[in-house]
């Protein structure tokens, strides 16, 4: 009898942690379920509150409609209609048929006095703007805050910057020209000289393996990259000796350091503007449905997507991009013929004055 009692007692002691854990899980599960139920109710209330807030925030506001743009703003001196008239053609030409849904996403602006120190009410809906913006600044606000049509992460990742409509695309191309002629990379120089395969490399189109060797071709470039951008990063701990070797022009050390960088940290030889110009070129070439085609298949390689958007093969598109960029060469500073003589004249005049004056005269 006593043995039976002993066995029962042992079994109950051994089982108690398991049963207590079961009850703990059940208690925590109930707590989580109760929180979930409370969250669902709170979500419904929040949806109502947000909707009421939207109505309150837009009450007494004017609605401006230009093309597919809808702007809801309180009465103010802001030149929103003029800005919308300038912004709409630019937006329409970039996104094409993909902006059909744009009227569903109106801009909501709250124009406020920029010089007042009166405390402003908390902003729950829309964007605050100072009411002394001119047409150009207001247009830029519309262009930078427009709800862009669907844009997948893979494309955004490759692009490295937001694709936004711009009033001055020629400035972007000129900036890329400057990159082409100043980037310390043989590959970029090759692209500038018309090697389309090099252009594809530096634009990160196609094969993504061995980027280090293709972007930074010569040992001097790799050394300059390490010593110019990553000295602080590699100067401590186990990599300090390798850094010293790299500084002593040992390419294997420089290459090893660059290969040890975290993913995505290797600086691209060309900035995001170069890829933005390429996408704009593809959209321009592809017509009104180009944007739709660009975002239609997010799992496809970027070069295939660009090619499909532009309706031309990728080499032709890249060549077109390069030609556009080279044509956008910034105007060199031209001096009038007499400027050189004027400079020499002034130099001679001040030299003469200096020679004529005595040492002690003030």
């Amino acid at each position, binding site marked *: 009898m006593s043995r039976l009692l002993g066995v029962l007692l042992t079994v109950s002691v051994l089982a108690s942690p398991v049963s207590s854990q079961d009850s703990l899980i059940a208690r925590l599960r109930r707590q989580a379920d109760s929180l979930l139920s409370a969250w669902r109710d709170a979500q419904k209330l929040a949806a109502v*509150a947000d909707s009421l807030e939207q109505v309150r925030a837009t009450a007494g506001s004017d609605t401006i409609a230009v093309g597919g743009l809808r702007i809801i703003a309180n009465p103010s001196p802001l030149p929103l209609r003029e800005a919308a008239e300038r912004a709409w053609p630019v937006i329409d030409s970039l996104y094409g048929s993909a902006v059909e849904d744009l009227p569903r996403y109106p801009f909501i602006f709250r124009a406020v006095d920029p010089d007042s120190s009166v405390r402003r009410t908390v902003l729950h809906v829309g*964007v605050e703007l100072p009411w002394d913006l001119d047409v150009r600044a207001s247009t830029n606000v519309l262009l930078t805050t427009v709800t862009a049509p669907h844009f997948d992460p893979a494309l955004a990742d490759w692009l490295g910057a937001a694709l936004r409509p711009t009033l001055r695309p020629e400035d972007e191309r000129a900036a890329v020209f400057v990159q082409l002629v100043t980037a310390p990379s043989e590959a970029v120089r090759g692209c500038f000289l018309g090697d389309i395969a090099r252009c594809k490399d530096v634009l990160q189109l196609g094969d993504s393996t061995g980027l280090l060797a293709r972007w930074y071709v010569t040992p001097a470039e790799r050394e300059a990259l390490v010593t110019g951008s990553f000295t602080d990063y590699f100067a401590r701990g186990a990599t300090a000796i390798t850094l010293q070797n790299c500084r002593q022009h040992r390419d294997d050390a420089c290459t090893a350091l660059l290969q040890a960088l975290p993913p995505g940290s290797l600086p691209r030889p060309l900035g995001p503007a170069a890829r933005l110009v390429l996408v704009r070129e593809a959209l321009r070439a592809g017509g009104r449905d180009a944007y739709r085609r660009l975002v239609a298949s997010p799992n496809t390689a970027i070069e295939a997507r660009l090619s499909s958007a532009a309706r031309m093969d990728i080499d032709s598109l890249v060549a077109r991009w390069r030609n556009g960029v080279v044509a956008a060469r910034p105007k060199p500073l031209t001096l009038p013929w007499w400027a050189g003589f004027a400079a020499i004249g002034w130099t001679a005049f001040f030299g003469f004055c200096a020679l004529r004056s005595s040492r002690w005269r003030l």
Partner: protein
Amino acid sequence: MASVRRWVLIGLTACSVLALAYLPPRGVKSSGKSVFVGQSLQATRARQYAQALAEEWRNADAVVHLLEDRQRVKRDFSRASPTMVFRGATLPPNAVRNVETVMDSVWRGLGLGETKVRVTVVIELQRPGSVDTPTPLQDRVAYLTPDTTDRTTCMVSLPAGAYWTLFILGKRDARHEGFGRFAQWLQAGLGPCAFYAAYGTPGRPVRSWLAARNWDVGLYLGSHGIAGERFSSLDLMGNPGFSGFWDAVYSLPPATVACLAGRRRGCRAAVLAGAADEGAIPIPNVILVKRRWWRVQHLLPGERYLGDVARTVGRDRFLSFWTSGQPVDTALAAALKRSVGEWTADWERGFVRPIRLGPTPPLGATVIAVAIAVLVLTVVAATASRRQVR
């Protein structure tokens, strides 16, 4: 009287010259426009309340899942390394094998084999959100440490996010070094469970100390940086040449800043923060490491501190500290065979050159100030020495 008037005139003229030089004449317009700072959008109160409830639910849900998985998951006794479980999608067998292979190599790299405390890693693959439930925990890692109900299992809930989900499912190549980076991610994800596996359950004082500071000094057992060869939480602060670095420095607790400056007392205080608290250790003990964990560290790069201590002092001495019943400062100093502050200050210098604290006047300004002071004192002394009392 005439000389006084002359001096008054000279004084007034000097003041006028100064006023003309420094005060702009009336009617001048401001050179630039006033800077307008628009308000950032705030959620309505009702929305904020819903978000707070969602946050509570995420934490509660993570705890329940960890407990349920601990009961449910069958250990894979064929492998010494952690048992891998995937939630959110059914993986093809070769994908599972790939992940297990990487984990095996990580485990060997940490010098671990068969361990008394076994680790189970639940990888939460990203799935599309549902309108019925808040988005599940995707921005923090959760650990369930061994307790009285299960003394030999440490659970890890590791959200894979979009990038590693696609990689595990074989839909995306990891950039550059592929498996190397994936291994780094898995190793960093083991967190406190790696310590449990390597050294067993810590003694009560150490457990209480680590719980009080949310394990910020025991997040990473590996010998490399937590996010790459050299990458530690210190690198996230940026470069000392930029103002952002100093903003980050002065948002840290005073002892942490003092330690960055190489002060031993500061280092000691930073290490022993939470050691005096005799707080009860909750059961179940779930450690939630938030996405921006480096912002709440008491020591930089604290995530590898205990790992470095263990590597420096060797297994036996570290075990004597880990399982000690003595107060943390005594046990740690005994293991290090040096004072905690001294050792930690030296350790800190291995990562960052001690920052300079306090005012740092430029040399030129100091020389000018001293020269003026000497001149004034000389004039006063000369005047005083010539003064005669009649």
